């Protein structure tokens, strides 16, 4: 079922690419409308899967990626509609397409082990997914910032100069997305820790026993939290903004992406619920 929203996202991505190169208003409208349609279809798919298994399909990397893509699409649409800027669609939608390939290919919803049947767990995962979507958006904004910065600094005004909003606007958008994501990341990690304290004395599940700072997934996410905390702190105290903030944002999301797919699938011993 996840292949259907994937197909719509592909169409939307193609329309964003056409809009970016040709800048025809019609292609931009088609891109936005198809993305909205994709989100609606995706919502329907997640709803169907929820009805099928009796809970929101957040267990396992596959379900989490699908929910992440859905949240990212929503976050991007919100940004597009509030700023009237479509130029970043060409960066966001392909990322969504690549990630959505995973749930589209595996196309199965993991059953929820008894240990995860907790409100804490749902809050933990959903907070982190909102944070990841926010960081993904911040990363893309940062990349566009760096590209525009390079054009302006190098005095070679090209495609990004003509298509992107000002550096200042991109910097503010990056700051907001990082701060928003950092709040949810902090909440998600805190809730995860509380939930772990609650279940670890009684749970015999080896994955619960493996949950410690030394587990690669937990280690990387804590590292990400430190990176983003530094980013938020440095911006407020020492004025770390612009290119440095953009690089931090890109590094932070690079780590998260690493955690999300290869580590989440192959390395972690504590979070392998797929």
């Amino acid at each position: 079922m996840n292949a259907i929203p994937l197909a719509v996202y592909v169409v939307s991505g193609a329309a964003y690419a056409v809009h970016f190169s040709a800048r025809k208003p019609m292609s931009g409208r088609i891109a936005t409308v198809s993305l909205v349609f994709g989100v609606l279809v995706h919502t329907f798919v997640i709803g169907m899967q929820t009805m099928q298994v009796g809970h929101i399909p957040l267990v396992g990397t596959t379900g989490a990626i699908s929910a992440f893509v859905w949240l990212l699409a929503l976050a991007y649409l919100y940004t597009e509609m509030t700023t009237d800027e479509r130029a970043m669609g060409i960066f966001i939608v392909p990322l969504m397409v690549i990630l959505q390939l995973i749930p589209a290919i595996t196309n199965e919803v993991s059953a929820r082990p008894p240990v995860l049947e907790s409100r804490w767990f749902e809050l933990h995962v959903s907070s982190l997914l909102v944070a990841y979507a926010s960081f993904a958006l911040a990363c893309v904004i940062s990349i566009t910032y760096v590209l525009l910065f390079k054009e302006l600094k190098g005095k070679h005004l090209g495609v990004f100069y003509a298509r992107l909003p000002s550096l200042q606007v991109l910097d503010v958008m990056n700051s907001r997305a990082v701060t928003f994501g950092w709040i949810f990341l902090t909440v998600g990690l805190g809730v995860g820790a509380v939930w772990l304290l609650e279940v670890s004395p009684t749970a015999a599940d080896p994955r619960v026993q493996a949950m410690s700072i030394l587990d690669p997934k937990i280690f990387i996410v804590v590292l990400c939290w430190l990176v983003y905390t530094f980013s938020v702190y440095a911006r407020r105290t020492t004025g770390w903004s612009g290119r440095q903030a953009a690089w931090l944002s890109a590094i932070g999301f690079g780590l998260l992406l690493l955690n999300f797919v290869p580590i989440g699938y192959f390395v972690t011993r504590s979070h392998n619920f797929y």
Partner: protein
Amino acid sequence: MHLLLLGASHHNAPVDLRERVDFSRRGIPEALRELERIPNIYECVVLSTCNRSEIYTVCAEPDAAQEALAVFMSSFHDVPEPELAPYLYKRTNQDAARHLFRVVSGLDSLVVGEPQIAGQVKEAFQIASEQGFTSSSLNRLFHCSFRVGKRVRTETGLGEGAVSVSYAAISLARKIFGDLSQLKALVLGAGEMAELTTTHLNAQPVGAICLANRTPSRAAALAAKVNGTAVPWETVTEELASTDIVVTATGSSKRLLTHEHVANAMKSRRNRPLFIIDIGVPRDVEPTAGEVEQVFLYNIDDLQTIVRDNLSKRQSQIDRAELLVHEEVDGFMAWLGSRGAIPTVIALRRRFEQTRQSELKRLAPKLVGLSPEAKSRVEEITRLLVEKLLSTPTEQLKSASDEQEIAADTDTLARLFKLTNQTPQEARDKSNQKSSKTTNSTLPSSTVKQR
């Protein structure tokens, strides 16, 4: 009816002549009122900018109207006819429409693609239409032209990129800072270039403008002119810390701002960007200052390169824009052609209505016994019958765009229904009020001015 344009522009008329034929000197409304007195001109719009003075009209006889307009321009502006005539150009019908579409799109401008002209044409049309000097033909023509202008701007890159050094600098500032209203600009120097740049900056919503010059009185004089603040020359390096845009145009032989000055200023700026525009020759700012993080340094050559690149990009978009204009001219001319059948349609409907009324009158004695409801039903049925019978011929006549086809249809209908003899003056007046033009010679059209 024909579209006719007469004008003078930067293409052929020298600037002193363009100044003399500028309608805004005496006022466009006055020009329109005088144009109204010229016979056989039914609609008119006067466009007057620093680069062109043009009169768009709908008239009966283009040659006669052209002569009358030339005399009008000469007398209105008090320029002898022989002096003015060589610089006037005339365009009719399709060429007039094409000309206007090209003007609005910026294709006919001195700087190709400049956007101001669209607003100026809108203003000219608004003045004429508000005072009732336009009707269906010019209304349609100008609205089409605005659509063409919009399409050219959105579907081609003709209007993109700054094509003057000062505008390039402002565009760069906008791309770095976005909103300029909270920013502070510092201008170093008080010469001609500094004054020009300050005037441009002042036209933008920049938060504050400070000026500094080695001779404080000159800085103060310029500051008073542009509503800025003069600051002492000695404090310039300290001012950098709180400034966002710096313009240097001093002509000094020594570098005024070094890498060190700028780097020191950036430390206290907490990474806020600093945009330095160095238009002095020799340069006032050490080139390596541009390497400092968050400092964007552009000199006069950089800005001129941007302008040249943008101009060449615009040139490459001309063919696409011309194609759009061509499409829209065809569309407009098809509509204009179809309007030629309107008087015939009106005459035909009137003829049918007369027949219906006379038959109802003739049958009135036989309908005496009917109730008022039944009588009104008879009235309605006969009216609907006439409507139905005329529906298809009306559509066919309106859809014809070829002049010869319209003329043939008109002749046939006029002969079959005796429209020529029976069309009342009222019908002609009505048709003219609606259309103000036709290519039909059998059914003469309006001479009524749309006031």
